[in-house]
Structures are given as C-alpha cells and as structure tokens.
C-alpha cells in the first residue's frame, strides 16, 4: 500500500477511534456520582472556592479546622440530580450550602481555577461538564499523539497508554481529580517532546504542533500536582538523553549540564514551594511507633513494582464515605491486566537494548524513591499506598521501554495475539465500568447481572438513559476504540527468523 493512502486510512481510523473513545469517556463520566474519586469533596470544595469568597459560588472561606484543612462554604451537593423532571419518581432537591475542605497551598491552584470556569448554579451539570472537558483534553492529546507520531513511536506510546488505561487511569482521566491532568500530561508530554526533537527540517509543521501540544501537556502537569513535576522532569530528561543519543556520542557534558539544570530547577522550586521540599525531606528517623527504618525501606524496595500495578484493578476505586462506596473490581480485571502487561514487557524484552535495561532500572529507582517519599509521611505504613501516586509515570515506563526495545515486533503486531488482547481488554473494560456503576447504584457489585435501580434511583436522576444502557454503550464504544486505534499499527508475520 502506498504511503499517502495508508496515511489517509490512518487518519480515518484515528477519527473513528477518537469518536469511540469520546463515547467511552462520556460513559465513564456518567458512571459515578459526585464525590466518587479519592478526596473528591476536597477537590470540589477547592474548585468552588478557587477564586476565594465571591458571594455566589463560595460563600465563606475559613481557617483550618480540627481536620487541618481550610474549609469553604459552597452549594455543591444536590443528590447528583441531572434534570428535574416531574415525570420521574425521584425529583431534584434544592441545593443546600455546606462546608467542604478546600485547597490553600496544598495543590497548585491553577487546576481548580480552570475547573471553576465551569461552575454553574447546577452542581451536577457543572461536574459533568468538568469531567467531559477533562476527557476532551485527554482525547485531543491522544489524537495529537497518534497523528504526529511515526509508526514505531505510535506503537510504543499506544502500548503504554492502552495497557495501563484500565481501570484507574480511565477513572481519573474523566474526573474532577487533579491526578487526571497529571496522568494525561505526563503520559503525553514525553511523546510530543520526542516528536519535536525527532522531526526533520522538512517536517516543520509536525515540529510546531508537537511543541504546542508538549506545552499544553506540560502546563497540565504544572497545574495539577506538585509531585507530578518529578515524573515530567524525569520523562522529558530521558527523552532528551535518548533522542540526542548522548551516551553513544559520549557527550557526557550535556547529560551533566541537563542534570545540573534540573537539580537547580528542583532546588529553586523547593525553596519557594514547601511541598516540593517536602518530597525530598525523608523522615529517616522513625517518629513514635513507626516501623523501623530497615523494615520500611526494604519492604518498599521489594514492593515497588506492586504500587503502580495496583492501578490495574487491584486497588479499589474511590473513597469510602457515608452514602458512597469504594468500587471493588472483579478479580479478572487485574488478572487479565497484569497478564497482558506481562506479555507486553516479555515480548519487548525478547531482544532488549542496553538503553531499555538501564531505563527500566532507573525508572524502578525513581518509583521506589517516590514511594519511599510518600510512604515516609504515611507513618511508614507497610500495607496502604495508593497506586495513583505513581500512576503518571506508569504509561511512560511501559511505552518508552517498548520504544527502546530492539525487538523487531511487539505484542500488538502479532495478528492473533492482537485479537485476543482486544477481546480481553474489552472484557476488562466491561467488567470495570459495570462494577463502577453497579456499586454506585446498588452499593456493591459481586456479579454481572443487570443493574437494579431501586427507589434511590440512578445517581444521575432525570436522565433518559439508565445505568445498564450506559454500561452497554460504553463497552461497545471501547471495543470500537481498540479495533480502530490498533488498526493504525501494521501487523507482522512471525517466523523463527523474525529477529535475525
């Protein structure tokens, strides 16, 4: 097939994939009520009070109470009522002003200010709009990543994205949690930087677009979470080192200069921002009844791999609060997720490059460092550390490892395995979205029966569609996404000589 024709076909496939992913994201936006993600009431309070007391959205802003958080008075909770429809059993209730924890220096304020643009007098619609805007942002970057990348880079990025997507990345991407922007930003910025660097002189348009999208994705990281800075700096640093082939050219001075600049930048940020300095302030001396240092450090060095893997469905989604539930995902979600990811890594390591090995080793150390940093503040708890803390770096680690592999084919280029993977990911997605919706509607999810809507009704009261239909549409759409997006990647015939 000639290149322009293939390019045109790929554009069509990317457009179809984007449409299907949008529909999938809409389904996820409807899958949970307000307050579903971790600490979401804090984030909602921060969004409503992002501009301080304004007399309409934020009625009061108070000093920290016994919980240690600043609080804002705002009218947010309305029972997740979408439309007040007199024909429905469940009617909307007037919103009542309540006290919510709110951000004051704990997170960057830009994310909350951006989300505040979508606050209206109708909280549920506002949150839905925010979720969809965040989904659209991620989608726009995904389209950019697919269109601007060469076949090989697209394969690598797509592998990293798709095999780490379910369920937590998807859950956070289409949410009002700043981690969504962190994951989206870190997960795409490295790719745009790589494309900008690797674009030839003739590919000026590609370079300009790549720089523009790199700027957007980087800004998303800076606006969302302080800890995500580290991941972005690391991923961009790795891309620069590899793209300029610095090690092979033995231009160690560039590595040294970049490392020094990064270190100085981090130092300067830590001087002005207590949260960045907090990350580097390891509590090496146990306080109170903390686990002893050797146990704490060696436990987490061994467990490092476990933390990001939890996001594949081992860890519950959301946070338990009165009236809401954490979502326990069915075990096949993580079993299939880990199996597929293992397959990806094994195939990429059939013929590894030295760069790939070093990269994986350094990534492991970085993740271990971040885990120790977080866990040190959590009283050295050996059992509870959410995967979301290192989620932004997860897709990069997988994707870039695939990119650095010397293997001439990757798992999704093997036609039959691709079919199996698409089917399995479809199953994982369907189980995940069903579990999320059923738990939020019914309080628990132990099966894959039709979701029973009781008199408490569907969370988004007033919608013409019900939860079962949202599961169905979301599942079909995600399958379309997988089929379309992987059809932009050529398959290879595998033989014994393939790698020779």
């Amino acid at each position, binding site marked *: 097939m000639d290149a322009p024709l293939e390019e045109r076909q790929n554009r069509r496939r990317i457009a179809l994939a984007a449409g299907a992913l949008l*529909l999938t994201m809409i389904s996820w936006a409807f899958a949970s009520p307000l307050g579903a993600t971790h600490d979401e009431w804090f984030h909602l309070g921060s969004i409503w009070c992002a501009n301080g007391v304004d007399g309409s959205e934020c009625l009061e802003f108070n000093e920290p109470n016994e919980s240690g958080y600043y609080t804002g008075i705002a009218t947010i909770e309305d*029972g*997740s009522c979408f439309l007040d429809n*007199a*024909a*429905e*059993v*469940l009617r909307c*209730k007037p919103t009542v002003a309540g006290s919510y924890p709110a951000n004051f220096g704990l997170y960057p304020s830009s994310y909350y200010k951006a989300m505040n643009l979508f606050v209206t007098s109708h909280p549920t619609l506002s949150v839905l709009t925010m979720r969809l805007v965040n989904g659209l942002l991620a989608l726009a970057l995904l389209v950019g990543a697919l269109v601007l990348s060469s076949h090989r880079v697209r394969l690598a990025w797509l592998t990293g994205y798709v095999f780490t997507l379910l369920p937590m990345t998807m859950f956070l991407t289409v949410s009002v949690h700043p981690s969504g922007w962190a994951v989206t930003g870190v997960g795409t910025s490295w790719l745009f930087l790589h494309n900008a660097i690797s674009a030839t002189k003739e590919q000026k348009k590609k370079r300009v677009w790549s720089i523009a999208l790199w700027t957007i994705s980087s800004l998303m990281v800076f606006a969302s979470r302080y800890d995500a800075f580290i991941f972005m700096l690391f991923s961009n640093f790795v891309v620069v080192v590899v793209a300029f082939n610095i090690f092979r050219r033995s231009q160690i001075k560039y590595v040294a200069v970049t490392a020094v600049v990064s270190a100085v930048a981090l130092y300067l940020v830590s001087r002005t921002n207590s949260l960045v300095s907090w990350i580097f302030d390891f509590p090496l001396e146990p306080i109170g009844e903390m686990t002893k240092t050797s146990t704490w450090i060696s436990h987490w060095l061994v467990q490092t791999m476990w933390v990001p893997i939890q996001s594949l469905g081992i860890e519950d989604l959301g946070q338990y*609060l*009165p*009236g*809401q539930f954490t979502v326990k995902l069915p075990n096949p979600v993580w079993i299939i997720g880990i199996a597929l990811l293992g397959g990806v890594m094994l195939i990429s390591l059939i013929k590894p490059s030295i760069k790939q090995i070093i990269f994986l080793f350094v990534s492991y150390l970085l993740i271990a460092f971040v885990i120790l940093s977080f866990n040190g503040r959590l009283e050295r708890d050996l059992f509870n550390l959410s995967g979301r803390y290192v989620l932004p770096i997860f897709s990069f680690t997988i994707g870039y490892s695939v990119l650095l592999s010397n293997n001439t084919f990757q798992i999704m280029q093997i036609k039959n395995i691709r079919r199996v993977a698409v089917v399995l990911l479809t199953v994982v997605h369907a189980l995940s979205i069903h579990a999320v919706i059923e738990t939020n509607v019914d*309080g628990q999810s132990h099966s894959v029966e039709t979701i029973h809507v*009781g*008199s*408490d*009704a569907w969370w988004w009261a007033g919608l*013409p*569609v*019900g939860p079962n*239909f949202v599961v*169905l*549409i979301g599942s*079909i*759409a995600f399958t*379309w996404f997988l089929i379309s997006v992987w059809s932009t990647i050529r398959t290879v015939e595998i033989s014994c000589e393939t790698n020779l």
Partner: protein
Amino acid sequence: MKQIFDRLHVYDKIRFPISLICVVVGLTTWSSRPDFEPAQFPSHGESFQQVNDVIELGDRSDLCLALRERDHYLLISGSIDLTKIGVEQGFFQTADAEDGIYFDIDSGGQVRLGIHLHDGTTGHVLFRKVRRAGLFNYAILIGANSLIRIVDNENDIQIQVKDIEPTCLNTRIGAGNEMDIRGALVEANISTGSDIAIANEFLENYVSAYDKSLPSTLYKWPLYTGMLLLVVGNPLRWRKK
C-alpha cells in the same frame, strides 16, 4: 445468498436516518410523559406528622395489647423525608431501651426495625439501605403470630421472628432506639385490628396501585434502539470486508 446480502447493504444507507428517527421519537416520548403522581398509602387509624419536635404519645399499651391476641395486628405506615444521610436517627419507638418496637437508620444508611422478643433479646429486620436524601414510604405490619411484613415502593419483605413481646410504655414519633431525629420529617399512621388478612390485603392493594402509578418506560425502546444502531455500526459491512 450473495445477492440477498448485497441487497441487505441498503441498510447501510438508511441506518443513520432510522437511528435519528428512533432517537428523536424516544426523546420526544420521554419528555412528554405526564407528571408522576405516586399512589398514596391510604390513611388509617391515628395520624401523626412530626415536623420539628418529637411527638410524645407516652404510654400506649393499647397498641402492644393487640399483639397478644390471635390474628390481631399492629399496622404503622407513612413516609420519611430524609434531609441528610450518614447520621444515625430514630424515627419512632414504643418504649425506651429496646423494650418495645423501634424504627431507625444507622450511619451507613441501613433502615431497620427492632422489636423486643420474649427471651429478652431484640429481633431486627433490616429493611432497606438509603443512599441519598429524599422521601420514602413505608408500611410495617406486625402480626400477633410474630410475622413481620415491611413494604415500601420497591421492597415487600416478610420475616418470621421468634415470639415477640414488645411494650408500649413510652411511644414517641421522631425518636427511636435512644436517638432523636436529625432533620428528617416523619409521618405515621398507626392502627390495630383483629384480622391480619384484612391488613395484608390493604398492603397488597397499595403495592398494586403504586406499581400502576409508576412512570412509563416505553420511550426507552426507540431511544435505545436508535442509539445502539448508531454505535454498533453495520455488521453486514464487516462481512463484506
């Protein structure tokens, strides 16, 4: 066979208009449904409406006396309008310290009925889990034979407990199980009778009337069909490929 499939490809041309028409018909039907008028539980016996303060009825041993005669019953029905969830509240009681009958909600949203038993313990009937603020109806039928039936708009449960022996020395509406109400509004109709079959028929009539009053969901057929046609695509085209 090939010709048949070729002809069926005309479906691809009309798929979008059909989807669109189905979706429009579905949405129009959905938006033009009449207002929902729920069937009300018929009034019976004494009526109480608690708004702010607890209604103190004091010693109402006459209510518990009904539960000592064969085939007699105690029927309590009404509605509870919860303004918030996540807090423990008592809705009503007939005695203090779990000596009688009480109806309450725990912090997890579990609504339950407690009733004092002959052996001195308390029997519990877990009724429903409430996850959002709002109004719900209830009807509790307690038979002298220790058969308890609780009905609301979606549940109809019957539980046989051990020998019941509640007292009614301190009957209160708006408090129960040593907890006062916290923001909810309670309506209660209380009656006793000598033939439990009549009370059961009373409940069945209500359940039937409520089911009939529920809003129509027929609009879902065209709406869902239209949306599915759009999303599924054309399987015939796949075959052609």
